[in-house]
């Protein structure tokens, strides 16, 4: 049995999915974090269920790629049952989607999620009455707390077996008349598209561009236009407004029938927003939050890095008592690769990801989008673009996937290009582990600010080259949620696991390869090939090879640097300027292999090459500037 979870953005589909499937997909408190669907098999009772978590969609009309994915899936009608997940505090609006899903003529279960939130907002719902009106099972739940999960899936399994369809909700008489009239000519088209006639007729009356394109027969198209015109004349407004306002009214009526609304509890969360979203104070708060965030991550990381490295420093020399020659090189490679992971990457990565998870779950990211919209507008983007960019501080791959929430292709490309320049967690470990650790935390902060300035300037340049009016910001502000410990821990683990399973083995392997090359003297030739670059940047030739490893995984460069230079006391071999030049180069140059892969998937060959060229050019230029400034200052 196949069960699809559909619903409006941020209604908790992924949370519900994770509750039944184990933690398989990242959840956060902002609309549009799920951009592609996840599918999993789950044993439930005696059955094996195929559960699909779809991206959120406000209606069956789609505007961005994420919504399109959800709608395509629903229209294929592959699912035996659709679980419509609804944020109970937004019931009236959510019912408009429910009514549309019902038109698909598939069995539905309505999951009234976030019942606690609804009560707090003063919305009290009689779920039995709702179930009677819609003719579908309605199950209250609080997915974050694991309440009502079994009941939802139990209801889905039951209705999947009986295949009971939802009640047909009637529009007003004259609309129904036009619908029936149109339905009569659509028989062949519906067979071709495998869609219920009523649904297609309604969508065509709504002038939905996607469906309009599917109608090829001129006579039918003519009929559609005629019916649209009739509605427009009799109601005095465009036919799409006629249908949507009828649906709106139906949803309102149902909502009023099944719920009572009392005064919402005013809690400190409401006052919090007055502060965090304030036109001036909001920015001060934003700066303070980010400053604090940075310092906490660095503080924890520095403490762990220095004590772990100290341990390894005292331990590695003893290895030569047991090994010699090539084996010694290889064993040292393994130990140093292990050291790099546990001593340099994890101390910064883990606190960083925990912090990011907390900000995500509280619901602060869309607030940042609101605050930053003004500024992003100046570089030709709108506020929603900040969400992929912020995700970029975690990892560039989800950032690029996240650009799917943007409506225009141009915005997607510019935002993706800019997010490849954002220092991801891997590059953050380099900035913190190298610059902050060996120079000073303020120097590290300066690098972040420098990075932002470059991004803003590149944004300005790109939007000059691709002038187009962006669609403008339309973004829902979710309520603040108290983050759940479980969600934070699991989400951090899901992300750290990527490092442990994929990057760390690479790190250890790469470290062995480097030692082997070193032992055989091959690294010398590689460094010689790269010497024009290293010479230009004023770096020792030995760092050349680390830059190659950095394309695999950025954090490799730091670990390899320590190895290539033969000491973890970097300051004894590199000057401060050299450290800064190196770091700036590593931050900006060609994104890692995983990023290139996802860029290719999302934007194809040509644009990926363009991004590679831009980043490589920028990296060389900027690190050269840093070198020059270093010479001038000292």
């Amino acid at each position, binding site marked *: 049995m196949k069960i699809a979870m559909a619903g409006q953005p941020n209604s908790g589909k992924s949370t519900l999915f994770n509750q039944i499937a184990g933690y398989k997909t990242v959840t956060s408190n902002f609309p549009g974090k799920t951009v592609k669907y996840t599918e999993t098999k789950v044993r439930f009772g005696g059955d094996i269920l195929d559960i699909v978590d779809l991206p959120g969609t*406000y209606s069956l009309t789609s505007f961005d790629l994420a919504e399109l994915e959800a709608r395509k899936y629903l229209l294929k009608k592959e699912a035996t049952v659709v679980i419509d997940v609804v944020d109970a505090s*937004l019931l009236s609006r959510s019912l408009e989607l429910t009514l549309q899903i019902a038109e698909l003529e598939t069995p539905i279960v309505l999951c009234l999620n976030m019942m606690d939130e609804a009560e707090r907002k003063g919305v009290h719902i009689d779920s039995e009455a709702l179930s009677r009106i819609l003719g579908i099972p309605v199950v209250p739940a609080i997915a974050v707390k694991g309440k009502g999960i079994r009941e939802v899936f139990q209801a889905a399994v039951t209705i999947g077996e009986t295949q009971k369809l939802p009640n047909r909700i009637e529009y007003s008489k004259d609309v129904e008349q036009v619908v029936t009239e149109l339905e009569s000519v659509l028989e062949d088209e519906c067979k071709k598209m495998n869609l219920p006639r009523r649904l297609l007729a309604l969508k065509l009356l709504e002038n939905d561009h996607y469906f309009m394109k599917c109608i090829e027969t001129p006579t039918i198209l003519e009929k559609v236009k005629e019916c649209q015109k009739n509605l427009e004349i009799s109601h005095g407004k*465009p036919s799409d407004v006629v249908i949507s306002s009828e649906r709106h009214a139906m949803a309102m009526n149902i909502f009023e029938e099944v719920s009572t609304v009392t005064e919402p509890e005013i809690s400190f969360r409401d006052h919090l927003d007055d502060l965090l979203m304030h036109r001036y104070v909001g920015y001060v708060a934003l700066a303070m939050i980010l400053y604090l965030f940075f310092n906490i991550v660095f503080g924890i990381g520095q403490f762990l890095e220095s004590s772990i490295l100290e341990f390894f420093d005292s331990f590695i020399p003893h290895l030569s008592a047991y090994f010699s020659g090539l084996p010694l090189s290889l064993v040292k490679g393994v130990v140093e690769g292990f050291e790099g992971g546990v001593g340099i990457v994890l101390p910064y990565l883990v606190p960083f990801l925990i912090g990011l998870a907390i900000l995500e779950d509280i619901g602060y990211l869309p607030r940042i989008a*609101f605050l930053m919209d003004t500024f992003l507008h100046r570089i030709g983007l709108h*506020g929603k673009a900040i969400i992929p960019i912020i995700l970029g501080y975690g990892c560039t791959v989800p950032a690029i996937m996240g650009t799917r929430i943007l409506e225009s292709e141009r915005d997607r490309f510019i935002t993706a290009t800019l997010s490849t320049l954002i220092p991801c967690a891997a590059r953050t470990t380099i900035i913190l582990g190298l610059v902050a650790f060996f120079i000073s935390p303020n120097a590290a902060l300066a690098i972040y600010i420098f990075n932002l300035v470059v991004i803003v300037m590149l944004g300005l340049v790109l939007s000059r080259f691709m002038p187009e009016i962006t669609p403008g*910001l*339309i973004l829902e502000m979710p309520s603040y949620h108290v983050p759940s410990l479980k969600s934070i821990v699991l989400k951090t683990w899901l992300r750290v696991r990527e490092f442990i399973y994929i990057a760390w083995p690479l790190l250890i392997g790469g470290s062995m390869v480097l030692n082997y090359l070193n032992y055989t003297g091959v690294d010398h030739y590689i460094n010689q090939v790269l010497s024009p670059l290293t010479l230009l940047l004023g770096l020792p030739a030995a760092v050349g090879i680390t830059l190659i490893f950095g394309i695999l995984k950025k954090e490799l460069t730091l670990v390899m640097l320590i190895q290539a230079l033969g000491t973890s006391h970097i300051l004894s071999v590199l000057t401060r300027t050299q450290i800064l030049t190196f770091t700036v180069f590593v931050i900006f140059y060609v994104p890692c292999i995983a990023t290139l892969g996802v860029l290719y998937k999302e934007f194809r060959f040509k644009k990926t090459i363009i991004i590679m060229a831009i980043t490589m050019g920028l990296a060389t230029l900027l690190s050269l500037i840093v070198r020059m400034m270093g010479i001038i200052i000292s």
Partner: protein
Amino acid sequence: MTLDRINPGQKARVVEVLGGWGLRQKLNELGIAPNQVISVSNSSIWRGPILVRINSNEVALGRGVARKVVVEVIP
């Protein structure tokens, strides 16, 4: 009067959404449709976006978008 000129704290009733089919549908999905009573709860500096409250939820709209929503102020 258009929505971008409403002061924070003021209430208004939506009269019409100007602009094409896409914008009309998109705003309708979020509950900004004719006859709906909404209020502006915040507006940011430098002609940045405004925050609109519809029943119990909030939506951020860029100025350009807000300019396309025709409203009448409810005193």
